[in-house]
């Protein structure tokens, strides 16, 4: 880094990078907080609110996000069309079925600072419901971020050796029929 020319060093510090986040089995709130940090540019030590430092963030598999608790049924997204009687309330499950990108988009929108920069930052957020990305975005990606939640393994994903290595915690009585 010491042998960069001044122009090259300026480019390296202020260039806009493209991050990739896989949202499969992840809580949308944690994904959104990671996105908002990088869209504002707060992950950079040279951050200032005026200098337009934010990076692009691409979120894939937004159709497969996982809510903790019963939020799919309990969490309600409200909106008003502006006309009388136009107050609409939809549960997270219904909204996700109608538009699989909406939950992550609304979460990130709520976490960004509430000023005029928010719309430009949202333009730099790219959400895709599945794995497929267009080629131009795929060519721009620089870094993939680690998923915030560790995905637990299902019982059929353990090998037979691992299942045998786990000790039997109790022994059934001789005459009990194990179904």
């Amino acid at each position, binding site marked *: 880094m010491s042998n960069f020319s001044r122009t090259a060093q300026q480019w390296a510090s202020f260039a806009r990078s493209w991050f990739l986040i896989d949202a499969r089995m992840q809580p949308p709130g944690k994904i959104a907080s990671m996105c908002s940090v990088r869209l504002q540019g707060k992950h950079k030590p040279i951050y200032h609110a005026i200098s337009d430092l934010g990076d692009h963030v691409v979120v894939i598999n937004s159709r497969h996000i996982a809510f903790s*608790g019963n939020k799919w049924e*309990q969490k*309600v997204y409200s909106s008003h069309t502006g006309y009388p009687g136009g107050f609409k309330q939809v549960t997270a499950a219904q909204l996700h079925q109608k538009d699989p990108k909406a939950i992550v988009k609304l979460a990130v929108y709520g976490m960004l600072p509430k000023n005029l920069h928010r719309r430009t930052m949202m333009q730099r957020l790219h959400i895709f419901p599945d794995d497929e990305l267009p080629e131009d975005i795929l060519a721009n990606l620089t870094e993939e971020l680690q998923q915030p939640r560790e995905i637990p393994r299902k019982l059929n994903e353990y090998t037979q050796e691992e299942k045998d290595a786990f000790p*039997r915690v109790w022994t059934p009585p001789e005459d009990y*029929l194990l179904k």
Partner: protein
Amino acid sequence: MAFRSVLRSVWTSFTGLNPGTLSSSVVARQTQNVPRLSALTIHSRGIRQALIFGLTTLQIEGKILEVPPGPKPPNPEAKCPIYRWNLQHKYNYTDVLLLSQFIRSDGGMLPKRITGLCPEEHRKIAVCVQMAHRAGLLPDHRPRLPEGHVPKPKKPKLNRYLTRWSVGSVKPIYKKGLKWCKKRMDVGHPALKNNIRYGFGHLHLRH
């Protein structure tokens, strides 16, 4: 004649099994006529190996294999298996290898008079098993469907984890309330409140 027809029915019930590769938790549900004993069925803990042999007459021999003794628990005097292995406050809904030892093949819990669990641990394990089922971590422990049942095309299920209440029983929170009196959403279960947490964060049961 009756004996052979009975044996044939037993043989057809065994065609799906590969002799010698049965695991120790296999079902001994089907009634079997072991030739040397009387025609009455004998339910036992597990006939682990079934050898099918004979060309003209079908003979099935069932042997109860000796299971090699496993590792010893660190606290053998305790009554409850969780306390015997010092697992109290240490397991969660993700520890499927432990939870699967206390469930039946259709996903239900085994009674505590059989497993030997103390009442609090039985309740905690039941709660963890419920959460694991709702998270989809036990895909093979489904209720048995009647024969000839054609499953309808299912709509894709939503991913979830740490669900306390059953999916159809919860109502949407249309009026959330102000910050000081907000209606919070329940996550996890208070039975697992005393689990050991490595790290500084608090356990949030109400989001």
